[in-house]
Structure formats: C-alpha cells, structure tokens
C-alpha cells in the first residue's frame, strides 16, 4: 500500500481550511434535517492498515475520532437518538456493535475508538471489504432518519503484493481464485466498478440513505485514479461519477492537524462561522462575529471554537461567560472551547492560534401572536402583533429584520423595533379567527404559532357616553372638560393617544396639545352609576388656534382585562394667548365707550332732529301782537279782555331757527336732553315773569299758566297759540285791584282764516283764548288759596 505523505506541502493547508467551512450547516450530512424526533446512526470506519504507523505515528486519528464521537454525543441532546458503531477496515472489515450514544455511553464508545483506532497492522487496504461491511452494518438494522458513514483512511485501495500470503489472498469479489502477485492488479482493478457502477456499494449506501463523510490523511491528488474516484465520488463530487453524491470529502496532509480537521468536520447540527479573524495568533470572537453569520446572535445557544496551535494548544483567556468548557489535546495542539452565550454581548479571546473553525448552535425564534385591534368584528379589518421570543428572551431591534415572518391570513408588515404587524383586511364570518404564523430564523430553523381570536365578542367596558362640548380658553391651560362615563362593569379608561395638535391661525405653526384623564393617562372607574371624569388639555405654547383635537381611548373592562374597546374623543378647542388683563380692559373700555358715545351721539342727533322747530314759512304761520287788560271782578275772579286787537298789516312771519322761534315777545326754544331716552321738548315763554297761554282748540288744546316758561312741544310753533306775559309787579298790583295792561302774542296758521279777514278771525281766537286763560288763572288762584289756607 502506498502511503500518501505530503506533510510538508504548505499549500494544501490553505486548501483544507475552506473545505472545513463547507461541511457544516444546520442539517446533518446528506441534507438530513434534525429536530427533536430525528434518529441518527453513525458508522465510524477507521483505517487499520499498517501504513498508519508511518503516516500517523502519534495516533492523531484516535484523537480526531474521539472528537467525532464527542460531537455526535452532543448532538444526542437535540435529537431523539444517536447510535454509533466503531468499525475498522484494512484487509477486511472489523465490525462493531451499534451503541446508543449519549453522555452516559460516551466513555464506552471512546474506549472502542481507542481499541479500534489503535490497530495499525493490517497488510492491505481494501475499499471493497470496507464498503461491503459498512453496507451490511447499515442494512442489518432498521434505518434511521439520518445515516452517516464517517470514513477515515490514510491511503488508496491497495492489495500489497509484498504482503500477500503465499497461497494468495481470498477475495470474495475475485472469484477466479486467490489474489496473487500475478493477478493482484487485475483484482484491484475490479474495485471502482464494484463501488461506483450502478448497483455498486456507493449506490447501495446511497439508496439506504447513508451519507459518506470521507476523511483522507495524505495528498489525495497523488492517489491512483480508481481510489480517487471512489473517495471523491462518494465524497460528493459528481465529476467522479460514483454514488449519489450526497457525501463530503476532506483531506489533510499533516497528521498533526488530523484531530483539528476531524473535529471541525464532525461539528454537525450547527452553522459555521466563516472567516474567523486570527491576527498574530490572537483570536477574538464577539457577538458581532456571531451576528455576521446567517442568524442573529440572540438565537445562539452554543458556540464551539476548534483551534490549533503550533506546538502547543492555544490558550483561552478566561471569558466573562459563566458557562464555558475547554478541552485541549497537547499532542496535536488542538483545543475545543464550548461556550454558551446568553444573548448579551460577549467576548471570547484566545492566543497562540494557528487555525480555527467555529460553529454556532442556534434555536429558532418562536413567534408570539396577539391582537392589536381590541375588539375584532366579522367583516372588519383586524390588526395583529407578532413578537419573537428567542432562547434568551424577547428579540428586538434590527435582529428582527433577519427573521422572516409569513402567514396566509393577512399581510405582514415590515418589522419595527419590537415586532411585526399583520393586517387582515376583512375578518372572516366565523366565531373566531385562527391565525397561524411561520417564523423562519434561517435555514432549517423555523417555528410556527397559532392563536385563536374570538370575533364579535361583546364586552362591557367603561364608555364615555357623550362627546365633550366645545372648549375655549386662553393661555396654556389646562383646559378642563367634564366627561360623563358609564362604568358598566367597571374597569379602566386610557388615552392611547394623549396628544394632538392645533394649527395656529396667525402663522400656521403647530401647537401641541397634551391630554390627561383626571391627571393621568388612565383612570379606573368602578361599576355603578354615571360618573364624571375630567379631561385636561394642556398646550405647549399659547397662540390663536381653533380646531378639533382627536384623542383615542381604550376601555378595558375589569371582567375581561384581556379585551378592550377603542373610542375617539373629538374636542373642539379654541384657544387664545393669555392677555394683559389690565391693558385689554382699558382698551376694551375705551372702545366700548367710543362705541357708546357714537350711539349716544346718533340718538342725540335723532332727538335734536325730531325736536326741531317747524318752519313757519312752510306752514304759513304768522304772529301778531295784541294788548289785553287783566283785572279782577268783585268776586275776585280774573278777567281778561282785549284792549288793542291786531290789524291785518301787523301779521308777521316769526323768526325761526331749528332750535328757536321768536314771534314778538313769544319765544319757543328747543330742548334736547342728553339722556337719549328722554323725548325732546320746547320751552315756551312770553318774555315776562308769568306766562299764560292757550293752545287749541280741541282736545289737544290746553291752557297753561306758568312762571317764565312752560314745557311744550316743538310742534306748538305751528299754532294756534295765544300767550300773554305778566310781570310780577303787575301781578301785585292786580292783587290790589288795579287793572293791568299786558302784552300778548297770537300765533296761528293764517290759512285757517281763509275766507274772512285775518284780523277778525284772530280777534275771535284771542277772545276765546283769553277767556280760557282767565279761567285758568282764576282756578289756579283758588287752588293756591285753598292750599295756603289748608282747605285741601
């Protein structure tokens, strides 16, 4: 058997590391997905040929095989069952037994690895026997969900002619007889056909669902074509046309690297951290390193770092993580660190690192569904909220963007900082809605959840029974509005939208409004009668604004705290800035006085207008002076008689202005009170101490005796009017019994004398009026006398 020694080919080192990177996914080899119900069966097939004494004198393959066993033992915690069989091959197949692998049996299996792996005295390397034995091992038991052949060899298929027994070597696939040096090449040549042709062992294993993980110690490029076809073909390279191509292949040229490579290659059920940064032998892995992988670091439950140092195992600087283990193999310089981060930022630092492979085990995030719409009704839109729970708690922030949420029931929105919103345009016409969501955390990691939501469910949450009335005020508030609340079953009313805005009417800027119920966002109400809750509105700045502030409410009944009703409060709010009360009062008072003054002026003007003296010319009014004699009779009565009657030539037009009329001794003056409700009047006087006048005739006519003037009307200027003026001295002399001559004035519309002489008509009027005046004076004197004597 030829040995492949390429330990000093540095270029292959670089090639081997990326190959490790391709080996790990969340699935097992053969695209076998794992979950809690998966059964796994692993056949660890170890080369026992004598060449190992030279290619692997330090038995590094055993160390590597242990790492493989440990890896599958850790997988046993996450699947239903892992069975393993440790078998050897060389000239023949050394079968083992299927053993259930877990932490309890790990020690025994490791001993089997030691036992089988330490054998290195087989003279030949026969692939046919190896694969035949493997096929029988898998075929002899019930198949598992995932079946893996981990095949380690250090060389090519070889029937070493130098070591053939004297009688030849019996091979079952060479029926012509024992294999001898003469026909060894012919027998060897049968191998690729037996393995790779249709119906061969590769097909046989592939058909049984077995995925081959092939590990070669040495330079596989130097192998003969037949062996290379089998190893690379079963290792998954379709170019070699051998088997279903569901395996993987790895070669390592340095036996010292074998534990490291085998450990890396066997990290199943995890995803690999590619391109881990190693600078000057220093490796730093943080949560950001994990985050650079296919999953957010919050989902990571276990981090494995397989490292190798030159001459000595790398050294781990004790991390802050509470849960971590470190296993080192000094002979190969390999170290395996298993750490369990907790979803918080962490740092793992190692020194003396030559090469590294890292893997992360993760758990799918679990969706949690809730309803954002407090009350769901058939046919109406519904909104639901989905958050993700990871192994370390609720997942928030940008990590949500790396998860994929799907559902058939509605439309999934873009995740925000806390989760996703699912909108259902129209809820079904069924008693409840079952909403199922699938949350994919990455390849092979997904979880689903189903939640049922009742539709058209009646709840007796507290309700605001009337919309608030319009509110106006000045300043910043708070502006308080009483709300009538029907508690129903009692519960809580909250303002889910406790702010709004108004647009200032002067500059268009925004005035923010903050609202509260009895001073807070929520208020508790007990079941019972209608009660009052005070809504307070506060502005962030004052200004002129008017508008409707819409506030959303959520009412939760105490009997069903999981349900709630939403409502809307529309407050018609009108606000103004706070004013300087004193200054505003002064200005308002001034303006009001100005307005009242204007009104007063107008009304006063109206009074002056309607109190004006009529124009005598327009009414043909004339006046004439006359002289009368006043005397007393023997009975004390006053008698008036005309002494000098007017003649036609003496009728004159009175002198008139709107406010005054002068007709000889007679004067009529307009008087307008400053009180607007007092009617205007006219003062009528005869230029003497006592004025006596008669207006008439008829009902409106009257006889007046007064001192100096009497109160009449402006229209009295139109007549008819007979007035005499008596001086005080004449009154005294009259009392002594002396007749007195007194002047008089007649004022009348000369048209009334139409058809006769004006003087004669006037004389008649004067006579009649003097008689009435005399009677009036007599009556007054009698009344005065009676008052003086106390008779009345």
């Amino acid at each position, binding site marked *: 058997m030829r040995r492949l020694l390429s330990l000093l080919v540095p270029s292959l080192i670089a090639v081997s590391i990326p190959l490790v990177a391709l080996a790990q996914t969340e699935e097992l080899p053969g695209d076998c997905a794992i979950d809690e119900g998966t059964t796994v069966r692993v056949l660890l097939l170890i080369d026992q040929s004598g060449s190992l004494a030279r290619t692997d004198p330090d038995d590094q393959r055993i160390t590597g095989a242990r790492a493989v066993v440990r890896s599958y033992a850790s997988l046993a915690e996450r699947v239903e069952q892992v069975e393993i069989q440790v078998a050897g091959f060389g000239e023949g197949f050394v079968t083992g037994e299927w053993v259930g692998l877990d932490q309890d049996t790990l020690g025994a299996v490791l001993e089997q690895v030691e036992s089988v792996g330490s054998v290195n005295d087989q003279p030949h390397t026969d692939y046919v026997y190896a694969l035949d034995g493997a096929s029988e091992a898998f075929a002899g038991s019930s198949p598992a969900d995932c079946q893996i052949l981990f095949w380690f060899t250090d060389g090519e298929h070889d029937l070493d002619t130098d070591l053939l027994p004297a009688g030849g070597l019996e091979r079952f696939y060479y029926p012509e007889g024992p294999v001898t040096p003469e026909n060894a090449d012919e027998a060897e040549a049968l191998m690729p056909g037996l393995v790779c042709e249709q119906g061969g062992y590769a097909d046989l294993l592939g058909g049984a669902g077995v995925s081959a993980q092939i590990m070669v110690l040495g330079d596989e490029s130097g192998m003969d074509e037949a062996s290379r076809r089998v190893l690379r073909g079963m290792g998954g390279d379709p170019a070699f046309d051998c088997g279903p191509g569901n395996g993987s292949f790895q070669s390592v040229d340095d036996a010292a690297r074998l534990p490291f490579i085998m450990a890396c290659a066997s990290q199943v059920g995890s995803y690999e951290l590619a391109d881990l940064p190693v600078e000057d032998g220093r490796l730093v892995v943080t949560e950001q390193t994990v985050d650079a992988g296919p999953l957010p670091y919050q989902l990571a439950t276990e981090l494995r770092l397989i490292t190798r140092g030159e001459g000595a195992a790398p050294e781990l600087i004790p991390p802050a993580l509470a849960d971590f283990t470190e296993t080192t193999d000094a002979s190969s310089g390999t170290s395996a660190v298993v750490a369990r981060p907790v979803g918080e930022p962490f740092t793992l630092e190692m020194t003396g690192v030559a090469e590294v492979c890292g893997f992360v085990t993760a758990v799918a995030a679990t969706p949690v569904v809730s309803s954002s719409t407090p009350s769901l009704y058939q046919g109406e839109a519904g909104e639901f909220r989905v958050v993700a729970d990871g192994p370390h708690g609720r997942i928030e922030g940008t990590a949500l963007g790396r998860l994929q949420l799907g559902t058939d029931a509605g439309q999934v929105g873009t995740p925000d900082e806390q989760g996703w919103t699912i909108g259902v345009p129209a809820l079904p016409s069924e008693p409840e809605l079952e909403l199922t969501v699938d949350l994919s955390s990455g390849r092979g990691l997904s979880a689903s959840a189903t939640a049922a939501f009742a539709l058209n469910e009646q709840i007796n949450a507290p309700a605001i029974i009337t919309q608030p009335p319009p509110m106006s005020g000045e300043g910043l508030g708070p502006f308080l509005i009483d709300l009538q609340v029907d508690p129903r079953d009692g519960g809580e009313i909250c303002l889910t939208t406790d702010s709004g805005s108004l647009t200032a*009417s002067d500059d268009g800027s925004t005035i923010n409004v903050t609202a509260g119920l009895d001073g807070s966002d929520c208020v508790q109400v007990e079941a019972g009668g209608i009660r009052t809750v005070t809504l307070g509105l506060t502005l962030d700045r004052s200004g*002129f604004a008017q508008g409707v502030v819409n506030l959303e409410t959520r009412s939760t009944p105490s009997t069903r705290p999981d349900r709630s009703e939403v409502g809307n409060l529309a407050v018609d709010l009108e606000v103004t800035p706070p004013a300087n009360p004193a200054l*505003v009062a002064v200005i308002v008072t001034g303006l009001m006085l100005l307005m009242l003054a204007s009104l007063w002026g107008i009304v006063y003007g109206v009074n002056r207008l309607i109190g004006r003296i009529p124009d005598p010319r327009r009414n043909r009014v004339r006046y004439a002076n006359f002289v009368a004699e006043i005397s007393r009779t023997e009975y004390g009565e006053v008698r008036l008689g005309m002494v000098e009657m007017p003649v036609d030539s003496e009728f004159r037009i009175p002198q008139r202005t709107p406010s005054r009329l002068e007709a000889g001794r007679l004067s009529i003056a307009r008087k307008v009170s400053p009180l607007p409700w007092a009617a205007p009047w006219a003062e009528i006087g005869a230029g003497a101490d006592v004025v006596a006048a008669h207006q008439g005739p008829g009902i409106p006519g009257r006889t007046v005796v007064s001192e100096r003037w009497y109160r009449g009307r402006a229209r009295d200027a139109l007549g008819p009017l007979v007035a005499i003026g008596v001086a005080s001295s004449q009154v005294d002399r009259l009392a002594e019994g002396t007749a007195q001559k007194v002047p008089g004035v007649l004022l009348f519309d000369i048209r009334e004398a139409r058809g006769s002489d004006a003087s004669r008509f006037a004389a008649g009027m004067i006579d009649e009026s003097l008689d009435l005046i005399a009677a009036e004076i007599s009556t007054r004197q009698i009344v005065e006398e009676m008052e003086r004597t106390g008779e009345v």
Partner: protein
Amino acid sequence: MTNVPIPGGGTQARTAPRGHASASRRWFYAAVAVLAGSALAIALLAWGEPWNLSPGMATSFMKSIVALVITFVLVLPAFAVFRYERQSVGGRWHEPPWRPSLIGWLGLLVSLGLAVGWHGLRLAIYVARVWTGEL
C-alpha cells in the same frame, strides 16, 4: 283709552290730510318692522358664535362687522323715524293690541344690547388683543 291718536291717525283738533296720515302710519310701522327685524338679524348673527375672535375666524369676524353695520345703518335711522312719527303725534297713544311701540322699543334695546354687548365687545376685545401684541 279711546280717542287717542296713533301716528298718522289724525286728531280731532287738527285733522291731517288722509294721504299724509296713511304715509305717516306706514313709516311708523316700517320703522317698527325694521327695528324688530334688525334685532332678529343681529341675534342670529350672534347665534352659535364663539366668544373669542381669532385671526383665522373670518366668518365670525364678518358677522360682527355686519351686525354693527346693521345697527348703524338700519337700527338707528329706523329708530329716528320711529321716534319722529311717535313724537309728531304727541299725547297718549292709541295702539293696536300688538303694541307697535313696545315692539319698536324692544327691537331697539335688543339690537343695541347685542350689537354693543356681544358683537361690539368681542370686536373690542379682539382689537385690544391685537393692539397689545398678543398675536
């Protein structure tokens, strides 16, 4: 009382021409109608309006302006006619049962009260707020 005049109704002492009497009565009744109608219009202009005016409330602003215009252009001239016709008769009144004088006086008082006490006052306050630089 009987035999007391109403505007245009004439008197026993001075019987005005019939045409003049009818015209005077029509003017008087028209003045009463204007006073009552103006009071109603000014009240309607105040109905439902907020107390405080602000710069964006053009409609409310115009309503108050219109109310004041009605007061000065209609109410006060109507009151002048009303009072002139009433004054021109003098003496006591003989009025129909619906008391046109009472309606006229009430119309005047309501019109002036609302125009001054509501429209004028809120305009004055608005002007004062503008004046004091609170805008």
